[in-house]
């Protein structure tokens, strides 16, 4: 390049040609390598470990966010009296704010007490060995349905442990850091839970759908299934205790020549910030499906008829009492 040309070349050209492209190539390669290693490594691989560390570091911010977001769930509209004098108005406003805060606090405490009672009931009914935790955040991306809870590996939690609340199964732990854990919700697209119809014992798999609904798959058209039937965990697979509520059937459709029903299930649970949950840390022999249960499920996956089930059941109350209260010695 001639000297004069070099002298008068602009910074724009130098920067435009020399910057941006080189880091782009290097960082693209790094990104692809990261993605490849992430997919290929196990749950305890280095990238998962780094993620657990980042989750630990950011968990205080997440808790603060949950605390900030929670009041907005319950606060209603506050109307001001525009005709009152300014002094009265100020006084009433202050009083109103105080009372609103108290009402919100008491309502929250009442709801918490109710939920805790429910959790205690669930825990004693099913004789669950569990750890209580609290939801501190939802998924920060739009494509997955997960929640973060405020307990982690330091509290004895591990990957694959099931998580419930007083109404039933919430999901399963998929990632764990020292003080938090990520729970994949039952309605996540990648979730699948061994389930059965409580009244007829027809066996299937409860799977999350892209639109956030639940479907009970692989229920044979020979099965006796109706709207309103309760779906519970079957315990097959050894992850979930058998008999925990999952939801209620809202529609049953049978396409011509189809082998299986198309069954939509309404979830029994809802997840909100600050809600208390139970993480089931281990299963007793009674809670896991026995060899007989598995053999029975294999021999008659379509279950029994409703009448036959009623005959075999003493009180007709279904699986919850059969599998829960009968097993145990309490806590």
């Amino acid at each position, binding site marked *: 390049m001639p000297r004069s040309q070099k002298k008068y070349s*602009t*910074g*724009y050209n130098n*920067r*435009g040609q020399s*910057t*941006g*492209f*080189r*880091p*782009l190539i290097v*960082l*693209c390669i*790094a*990104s*692809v*390598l*990261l*993605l*490849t*290693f*992430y*997919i290929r490594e196990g749950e305890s691989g280095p*990238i998962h470990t*780094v*993620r657990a560390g*980042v*989750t630990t570091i*950011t968990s205080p*911010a*997440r808790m*603060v*966010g*949950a605390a*900030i*977001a929670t009041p907005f769930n319950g606060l209603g509209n506050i109307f001001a009296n525009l005709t009152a004098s300014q002094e009265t108005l100020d006084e009433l406003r202050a009083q109103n704010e105080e009372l609103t805060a108290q009402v919100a606090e008491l309502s929250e405490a009442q709801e918490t007490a109710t939920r805790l009672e429910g959790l205690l009931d669930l825990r004693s009914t099913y004789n669950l060995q569990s750890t209580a935790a609290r939801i501190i*955040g*939802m*998924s*920060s*991306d*739009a*494509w*997955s349905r*997960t929640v*973060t809870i405020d307990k982690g590996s330091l509290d004895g939690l591990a990957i694959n442990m099931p998580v419930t609340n007083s109404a039933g199964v919430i999901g399963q732990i*998929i*990632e764990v850091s020292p003080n938090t854990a*990520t729970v*994949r919700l039952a309605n996540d*697209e*990648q979730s699948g839970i061994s389930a059965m119809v409580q009244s007829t014992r027809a066996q299937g798999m409860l799977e999350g759908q*892209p*639109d956030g609904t639940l479907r009970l798959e692989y229920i044979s058209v020979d099965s006796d299934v109706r709207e309103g039937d309760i779906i519970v965990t079957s315990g097959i697979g050894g992850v979930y205790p058998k008999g925990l509520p999952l939801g209620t059937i809202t529609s049953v459709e049978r396409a011509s020549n189809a082998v299986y029903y198309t069954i939509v299930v309404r979830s029994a649970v809802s997840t909100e*910030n600050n809600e208390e949950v139970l993480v089931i840390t281990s299963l007793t022999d009674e809670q896991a499906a026995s060899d007989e249960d598995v053999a029975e499920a294999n021999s008659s996956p379509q279950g029994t008829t409703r009448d036959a089930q009623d005959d075999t059941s003493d009180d007709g109350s279904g699986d919850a009492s059969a599998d829960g209260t009968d097993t145990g010695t309490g806590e």
Partner: protein
Amino acid sequence: MDLHESSRSQTSLAAVTVVAILLQAALAPQISLFGGTINFMLILAAVYAFSGNASRAVIAGFLCGLFYDLTASVPVGLMTLLLTIGSFVLANSSAAAIGASSQNTYRLVAVFCFAVSMVYGVALVIMGIQSDLVNSLLGHGLSTAILSALVSVPFFLASGTSDSSRRGFSVKSKGSRFKGIR
């Protein structure tokens, strides 16, 4: 004068960075509208892309994507890759549009949010994490793009990078005859 302005710009950029990181960690998991969430890292990458240094924009895009991947239940590396490439493209597009109005800046950012969210949705389907392409794109991707594009406005105002006629390159205050080209 320029030095003072540059220092102020750097300070506001640093402040925006801290705020975006905090919001991504604390607030993004709490807000979900119409199936979408606000991607503050997408916004931050866009802010850096408009700061006038393509090399820094690419590095910022990489780090923003990495932070997003590490704080969400998603494959690590995917958003990193998309934001790295997206920041490069956006930084060069913004350089090409030098002298353009802030309206054009927001238009470019909206396209950036839309493109990254859509490609991300398609990538998740290809990887088998999502099974329904329409739901992945329209149910999650589109709403995430719209939310992020809307929330990006205050970030650009705070960082002072929205008016592209004021940023980057030496033609700024030297009366170049190319200044008015759009």
